Each structure stands twice: as structure tokens, then as C-alpha cells.
């Protein structure tokens, strides 16, 4: 291995001389401890290295070992249910070997080398295959069939294919290429900074359902789409992200806890094995990979953690899965960029962030998408990306927020004021938007209900009207509003409190299927329209608001996911209004 020599150490930045021949983004090992770092700038024979571990005790004259390889992830069976740090070191294994605190210079393979996986071939000897084709599969968990694919760039005839239990280092297939024989193992390595190739990209057209009413109905994300959740502290970003990780109907979840709280990560780790996937009934951990680089872990590894997570997510996408990646929070990643950039004495852009901040953010989100994967079967895969952003003081003019909004298609604006009123999820319905509404319209109308998107529009209009009416009421008093306008206020309140408000900690309320969301919203709007009609029939607003059915509507969210019970409430709205209109004669005499 080629060796360089340290000439400067400043926090996470190390400069070494004698590195001629090293390539950008090559991995290096530093000092006797073998700390892991990555080359981020080359100047003649000097290499600027960002170090993924604390550099205390490192000094000039110590050696730097150049591996000549880029910083890579290992991709293969064993990824699911794992918890990694920012550079894919397995934290559970580190704990059993090194104790409760993360020590430096630990070198452990990300995937278990000794575990045997049962490999089932999917091709026959002599069959022609090309890159991306499935050679076989491994049942990694009851939820995930891990496909072993022909590696990038390889093609030929299957010369040998095995069946049985193997470790990831055993050869399971041989491919006779034009000139040589390629041995295929169950795992491959991939540079985290390189996108994994796809055959073709498509427009996202299916919703990623999350069971969160405000998201699915009002501001939906598409499978293969991108979204962001900015908000000040205490507004519930992390709860939203956790809810997404728990209930999204993606087949694989990659959760990147990037520079966030250790206790929250512990909560994920302790609750995921116990929570059930609503679609399959299996523990959620069986479809999840967690990357945890908490705020006190080395800052440079935080920068890498986003890419480590992305590479793993892309790998599962290539198998034809729908994958969702959550990054909490991208602001911490951007701050890591800023810190390294500052130490390199680069010319700063806005707020001290490097000038390339916006392009890095755009590159990151652009790795999402609905795609036709490599391989002859033209299978589809999707990678959806949701990033939390933590702007200082909740100020949306923050450069990270602004750069993110330029690329993402869904904006879930968290609102401090709503959070203080304990309205959760505190997503502001007037500020948020989704650009996928049109893309997924056909899908929703054909699979959920014909009028679904119309109802959505109607609800949005009511909420819009509410804010205008409230403005008027504040200025000249509520008495100045007509009864119709006051009914609008009440109905909008019902949408807010009975529909949008959702308790993440209530066993029934935490997840709502699209169909139930539809029936709930339809019932609320049905009440509103029946109320309008009753007003025309000269009923008083008080009478309408005194109807007992309103309480039932407000409790719909706690009803089980059974069509019958839900539709019953809808029917009862009709009954209630019929009763009201029959009372007409007697009331009028009063």
C-alpha cells in the first residue's frame, strides 16, 4: 500500500504530502490507529483528507495509507435489520466487541462473513444473462427476497450456478463472458459517491401511501418522488419522519439518522422490532436498514451517511422494489459540508455554507425516481426520498431550505403555531404543496374512489375560505358573518380537528388507509353540504350544529378499518338531516 505523510491536522481535516497518484474520493487510513478518511482535494502531491473519526492524538510525520479504492459500501444479504454508522460499520457488532462507547480505528466488515444464506438459483446453466439480471435469490427476512444480480458491466452465458447454503464470500455462479470467466459472489462493493445505473427513468404516477391523512389526501408523495419537511425544533419533524418510516407502503425503508439525537435513534431501534407492518403483519425491522450517525459522532461521517444510505437504497431499488429513504436531518449534513469547507479555507457562500451546497443537495434528491431497472425483464423500481430540514429559528429563507425547495416536489411545511396548539402533525395546509397531485390523480380515482380528487379539492377550498373568513371575523367580529359563512367555519374546523389532526401515539389513529381517509372526508363534506341545504330550508345554524351526529364524525378516526362501520356514520348523516327537516313544522312555531 502506498504511503503518504501527515503535514497538518486541524480537527476533522488532515493534509498529507507524498500522495501523488491518489485519486479524488479515495479512501485512506490515517496514522497508527488506522482512522478512516476520504480525499476531498488534491494539490500536487498534497492530499486534503476528511477524517471520519476524532483526530485527537494524530500529528505530523505520521503515515497515511492510500488504499487506492473509493469509499464504498458492501451490498448483499445481511443489510436488512442492520444498524450502521455513517460509513457502514455495524454498530451492533462494534458494541459487542468494543463496549458501549464508540472507539476509534475500528475496522469491521459491514456484512457478516460467517453467516450462511440459502441461495435459490433463478437461472439455468447455459442461459444468456446481462447486467442486472437475477441469478438467484436469498430469503433475507420473511418480507425481503434478496435478489443476487449480475454485476454492473458483466454479460455472458451462465457457466455454473449453485444451489444451497453459502456465505457471502462463496462463489455462487460463474458467467462465461467474451474473454474471461466472471465469478459472482452474493455481495458486491459500490462507491458511495456513484449513482447506480438504471435503464430508463419514468414519471412517478403512483402514490406512496403513508397512512397519514394530511399527507395522503392533501399533499401526497408519489412513489419515486421527493419531499421535504422543514420546521423549527419542537414542531414534530422527527415524529413525522418516524411515522413515514413506520407506515409508508414501500417495501424497503432506509432510515438515515444524520446528526440527530441519540435517544430518538434508540427509540427507533427499540420500537421497530416490535411494531407491525400494517400491510404484512411482520415486524417493521424486517424491511428496514438504519444508518445512525448521531450528532455527537464524527462530523465527516455525517456527510458520508447520506450517501451510504442512498447507495443501499438504490441497490434495493435495482431489485425492483419500491424503496423509501428518510433523511433526518439534511441540515446537519449541510452543516458538515460547511464545517469541512471552512477548515479547507474555501470562499464561503451564503451563511458560511460552501458555494456548491445547492448543487450537492440537487444531486442528492435527483437520485430518487421511478425507473426501469437494468436487466432483461424490464422490471420497475422506485426510490422515494424524504428529507427533514432544520432551519435555524424555523426561518424558511435558510439556504438549505431554499436549495431543497428548488428540487423537491412536495413541501410539508411544519408550523410552530400549530405545534403549540398541539395540532399534530403540525403541517400547515395553506403553505404546503404537492406537485404530484396531477400525476397520481388517475391512480387514486381508479383505485380508491371516483371522486377522491374532487373531494380533496373541495376540502382545500373550504380551508382556504376559512382563513379568509377568520381574517374578516378578527377585524369586524364574528357577528358580521352570514350563517352560511359560519357553517363554513365549522366545517373547516371539522376538517382540521376530525380529519387532519392525527395522533401518532393512538393505536388506531396512527395509521389510516386511503379508503378510510376517503370515507371520513366524504362524510365530513356530506355533513357540510347537507348543512348548507338545511340552511336553505330555513333551519337555524344552532340546530344543525346541535346534531348528535357531529360527535360520531369526530370519533370516526378511532373506528377500526372496517368499511361497514364507517359507511354507517355516513348514512347516519342522512338520517340526522332527514329527522331535522321533519321537525321543521314544530320548530317554526317556536
Amino acid at each position: 500500500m502506498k504511503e503518504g505523510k501527515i503535514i497538518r491536522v486541524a480537527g476533522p481535516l488532515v493534509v498529507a504530502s507524498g500522495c501523488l497518484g491518489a485519486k479524488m474520493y479515495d479512501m485512506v487510513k490515517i496514522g497508527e490507529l488506522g482512522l478512516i478518511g476520504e480525499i476531498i482535494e488534491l494539490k500536487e502531491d498534497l492530499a486534503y483528507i476528511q477524517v471520519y473519526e476524532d483526530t485527537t492524538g494524530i500529528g505530523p510525520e505520521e503515515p497515511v495509507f492510500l488504499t487506492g479504492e473509493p469509499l464504498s459500501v458492501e451490498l448483499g444479504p445481511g443489510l436488512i435489520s442492520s444498524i450502521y454508522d455513517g460509513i457502514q460499520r455495524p454498530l451492533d457488532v462494534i458494541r459487542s466487541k468494543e463496549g458501549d462507547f464508540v472507539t476509534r480505528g475500528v475496522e469491521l466488515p459491514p456484512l457478516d462473513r460467517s453467516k450462511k444464506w440459502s441461495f435459490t438459483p433463478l437461472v439455468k446453466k447455459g442461459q444468456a444473462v446481462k447486467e442486472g439480471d437475477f441469478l438467484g435469490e436469498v430469503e433475507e427476512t420473511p418480507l425481503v427476497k434478496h435478489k443476487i444480480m449480475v454485476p454492473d458491466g458483466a454479460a455472458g452465458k451462465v457457466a455454473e450456478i449453485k444451489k444451497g447454503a453459502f456465505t457471502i464470500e462463496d462463489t455462487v455462479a460463474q458467467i462465461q463472458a467474451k474473454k474471461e470467466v466472471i465469478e459472482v459472489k452474493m455481495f458486491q462493493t459500490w462507491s458511495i459517491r456513484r449513482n447506480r445505473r438504471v435503464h430508463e427513468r419514468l414519471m412517478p404516477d403512483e402514490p406512496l401511501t403513508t397512512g397519514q391523512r394530511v399527507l395522503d389526501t392533501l399533499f401526497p408523495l408519489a412513489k419515486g418522488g421527493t419531499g421535504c419537511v422543514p420546521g423549527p425544533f419542537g414542531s414534530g419533524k422527527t415524529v413525522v419522519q418516524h411515522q413515514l418510516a413506520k407506515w409508508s407502503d414501500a417495501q424497503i425503508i432506509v432510515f438515515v439518522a444524520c446528526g440527530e439525537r441519540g435517544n430518538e435513534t434508540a427509540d427507533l431501534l427499540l420500537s421497530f422490532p416490535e411494531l407491525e407492518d400494517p400491510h404484512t403483519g411482520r415486524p417493521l425491522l424486517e424491511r428496514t436498514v438504519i444508518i445512525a450517525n448521531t450528532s455527537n459522532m464524527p462530523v465527516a461521517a455525517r456527510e458520508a451517511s447520506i450517501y451510504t444510505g442512498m447507495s443501499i437504497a438504490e441497490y434495493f431499488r435495482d431489485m425492483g422494489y419500491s424503496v423509501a429513504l428518510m433523511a433526518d436531518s439534511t441540515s446537519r449534513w449541510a452543516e458538515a459540508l460547511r464545517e469541512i469547507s471552512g477548515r479547507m479555507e474555501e470562499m464561503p457562500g451564503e451563511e458560511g455554507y460552501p458555494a456548491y451546497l445547492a448543487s450537492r443537495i440537487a444531486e442528492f434528491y435527483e437520485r430518487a425516481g421511478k425507473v426501469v431497472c437494468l436487466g432483461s425483464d424490464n422490471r420497475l423500481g422506485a426510490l422515494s426520498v424524504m428529507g427533514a430540514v432544520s432551519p435555524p429559528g424555523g426561518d424558511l429563507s435558510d439556504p438549505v431550505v431554499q436549495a431543497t425547495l428548488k428540487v423537491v416536489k412536495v413541501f410539508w411545511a411544519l408550523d410552530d403555531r400549530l405545534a403549540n396548539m398541539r395540532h399534530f402533525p403540525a403541517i400547515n395546509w395553506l403553505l404546503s404543496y404537492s406537485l404530484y397531485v396531477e400525476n397520481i390523480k388517475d391512480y387514486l380515482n381508479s383505485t380508491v374512489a371516483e371522486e377522491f380528487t374532487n373531494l380533496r379539492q373541495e376540502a382545500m377550498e373550504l380551508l382556504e375560505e376559512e382563513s379568509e373568513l377568520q381574517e374578516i371575523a378578527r377585524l369586524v367580529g364574528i357577528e358580521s358573518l352570514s350563517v352560511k359563512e359560519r357553517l363554513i367555519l365549522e366545517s373547516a374546523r371539522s376538517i382540521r380537528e376530525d380529519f387532519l389532526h392525527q395522533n401518532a401515539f393512538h393505536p388506531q389513529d396512527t395509521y389510516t388507509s386511503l379508503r378510510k381517509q376517503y370515507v371520513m372526508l366524504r362524510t365530513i363534506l356530506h355533513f357540510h353540504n347537507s348543512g348548507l341545504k338545511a340552511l336553505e330550508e330555513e333551519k337555524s345554524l344552532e340546530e344543525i350544529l346541535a346534531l348528535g351526529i357531529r360527535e360520531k364524525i369526530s370519533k370516526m378516526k378511532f373506528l377500526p378499518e372496517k368499511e361497514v362501520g364507517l359507511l354507517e356514520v355516513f348514512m347516519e348523516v342522512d338520517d340526522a338531516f332527514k329527522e331535522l327537516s321533519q321537525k321543521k313544522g314544530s320548530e317554526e312555531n317556536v
Partner: protein
Amino acid sequence: MYKEYLTVSNIAGPLVIVERIRDVKYGELVEIEAAGGFLRRGTVLDISTESAIVQVFEGTIGLDVDKSRVRFLGRSQQLGVSDEIVGRIFDGSGRPKDHGPQIIAKKMLDITGSPINPDARDYPSEFIQTGISSIDGMNPLVRGQKLPLFSGSGLPHARIAAQIARQAAVLGKEEKFAVVFGAMGITFEEANFFIEDFRNTGALERAVLFLNLANEPTIERIATPRLALTCAEYLAFDLNMHVLVILMDMTFYAEALREIAAARKEVPGRRGYPGYLYTDLATMYERAGRIKNKKGSITLIPILTMPEDDKTHPIADLTGYITEGQIMLSREIHRKGIYPPIDVLPSLSRLKDKGIGEGKTREDHADVLNQLFACYARGKEARELALILGEAALTDLDKLYLEFADRYEDEFVRQGEFESRTINDTLELGWKLLLAIPRAELKRIRPEYLEKYYPEKK
């Protein structure tokens, strides 16, 4: 013997640049002897083959380029610990300040510490009863949490912190308990208040104090909280104690950090604070927590005075992003003469959900908490409305809420500095106030609890 260098080339603010050095490591501890023999210590911030930038803890007054002698000690800053450390008072660099003997160290610990492996963390879920209703009832603290007090100058945060330290206990358990107090840049009077309070209540015997006062070297403040936390880690994870760490005042700490960044001519972030302030604060705050299969725990209460009571100021803002909630003090409530002036609405305890309820506090705790929140919020709205339109404009229901808000502040929030209420008392008090609200309005409380705890009015 260590090699001595007489090669200081540049002294600027808290920084000293030493030339022509050999075998010096990043983060190494440094001793600098001034011309008069006076010793100071520092640490290496930046090191290249030619020179080292040393940050001097005790300040650079009296140092000269010509005669200062610099020794590199070959190790980073450490704290010697043993079980003798409990009951002692140290200065901001860890030297005894109570005229007692030096600690005979059983262990030398690096003060920067190592991050807890996220996989080893246990989720905090044990309720701590502080005896203060507005904390226990509304924003309960759990063991292993980091919950800062967001205060302003002139507010009684010190008295509240002392009260928590005095009264904090876990229900139904007698366990080894210790308080570690780290003071950064506070005045003698403030520090003395804690020492006297600890002494009077006998808490001093189970406390460790690290004091860097306002007139002591600014740069030393960088080390003080780390010494306190290193000591806390030893007590918690080696000696199985439950440790409450109080750090006061984080604002002065952050200012010291800014001073160094400015002296190094770093690119400043918001309001001149360095871009890495978040990471730097996190490496301290995140040392709180619980570890699986370990008995002890570290609960952290940092106190910070927000400049101009502005919670979007970088120090408060970044702290809020790292800690698990915040207890917010309010000048408005303080002006009304209410102690403790805790404003419950913007306060938050993120870890409360797993720490309360049946078997921990009481089954109805979560519901009562939500209901009190909702009623108080509505009462405050009514109060604003009454200010604009006059009380006559309120509906009867709103008047009830307004009255509720007043009584809530006066009876529930207000309590004596030496009054410790059990969680049961706090919840009963809550119910007593809720009695004034019609039963149909109490939507956040489950019917079965209403049945059980809401005494029908005759």
C-alpha cells in the same frame, strides 16, 4: 522530561503559535511557563510540520514571545477520578478549590469522551418527580433526558435548578444519587447561592462542583462542562449512580467558543458563532442518557439565558435542536410575581410519553396533561380577546376559561420554593381546576377516567 520550546512566534487573543516543533499531536495538552514562572495550560488546535496553534485556557495576559517556555505533555486533557470526588469543589480546570487535598486518581479519563454507541442506548422511561407541578404535571422529566431551562437575565432559573436538584427523586426507589454542577462564567454570587443551598440541605455531600466564574479565564470555560460530564460519566457508568448534571450558563460557553473562532479568523456562521457550534454543543449534550444493562444514568439540565429572550438566537435554537424539549421561563409570569415562572405552552418534554401513565405516574396523567394544556391555551386566547374587545365581549364559556387560566397560573404553576408536591397532589390539583369547566368540554380525557376522577357537582 518533556522537551521545552522557546519558539513562540505569535500571540493573538487566546492563541499562541509555536514554531519548529516535533512530535506534537492534535488535541495535545500544553503547558506554558511565562517569564515569571507562572504556569498556564492549553491545547493544540491546529498542527502542521512547522507550527502549532495553541489555545491557552487561562488567557494570554503576561505572556511574551521571547521568554515563554512551552511544553507539550503528550496526552490530551484528562480528569483524574475516584469515588473520593463526590462532595468536592473544583475550579474550571479541575483543580481543587475547596482547600481539600488533590484527588488520588483511580482512573484518568479523557475529557472529550467518546460517543455512546446508539445501539447501546436504552430509551429513557423512568419518571423523575421534581416536586414542581408545572414540570411534573405538564412536561415531565425522565431519567437520561437532556432538558434545558431557557431563561433570560433576571429570571430565577438558578432557584428553579436548585429546587430540582434538591427535590428530584424517582418514585418508590432509594438509589445512589449525585449532582454534578458545572458553572461557566457565572458570578460569585450565583455560584455561592448553589454552594450554600447544597450545604444547607446536605446535598453538598453528594455533589461535585466545577466552577469557572465570570472573572476567571474565558477559554477555561471550554473545558469546564466537559470536566463535569466526564465526572458524571464516571459516577453513572462506573459507580452506578443516577447523576443530575446542571450546566450554567451555556450562553457564556458559546461566547467563549466564538472568541476562539474569531481569534483564529474562522469563517463565522450566524451572529458570529462558528459553524460547528451545533456539533460542539451536541458532543456535550449527547453525553446524557442511559446505557443498556447499566444501572446509572445521566440526566442533564443545561441552563441558558437567551439574549433578549429570543429563542431563535443561535445558542437557544441549536440547543433546542439537540435536547429533548425545553422548559421555558416567562418574563410575563415572573412580573406577576409567580414562582416558578414556567410558561408551559412553549415548554416541551419530548420523552414524556414513555415516562408517564399507569405503573409510572398515574393512568390519567396523559389525558389530564392534554386537557390542562388545551384549557389553558383557550383561556389565554380568551385573555387576549378580553384585552382587545373588553371582557364583556366574551361568551360565558370563554369567561370560564379566562378564570381557569388565572387560577391555573395562581394555584397550579405558583408554588413555594421549598414546596415539593407529589405527582398525585399535582394531578389532584389539576382535577380541582378542571372542575370549573363543564364536563362536556373535557374532550381530551377518556370517559372512564372522567367517571373515576371527576367528582360530579351536586
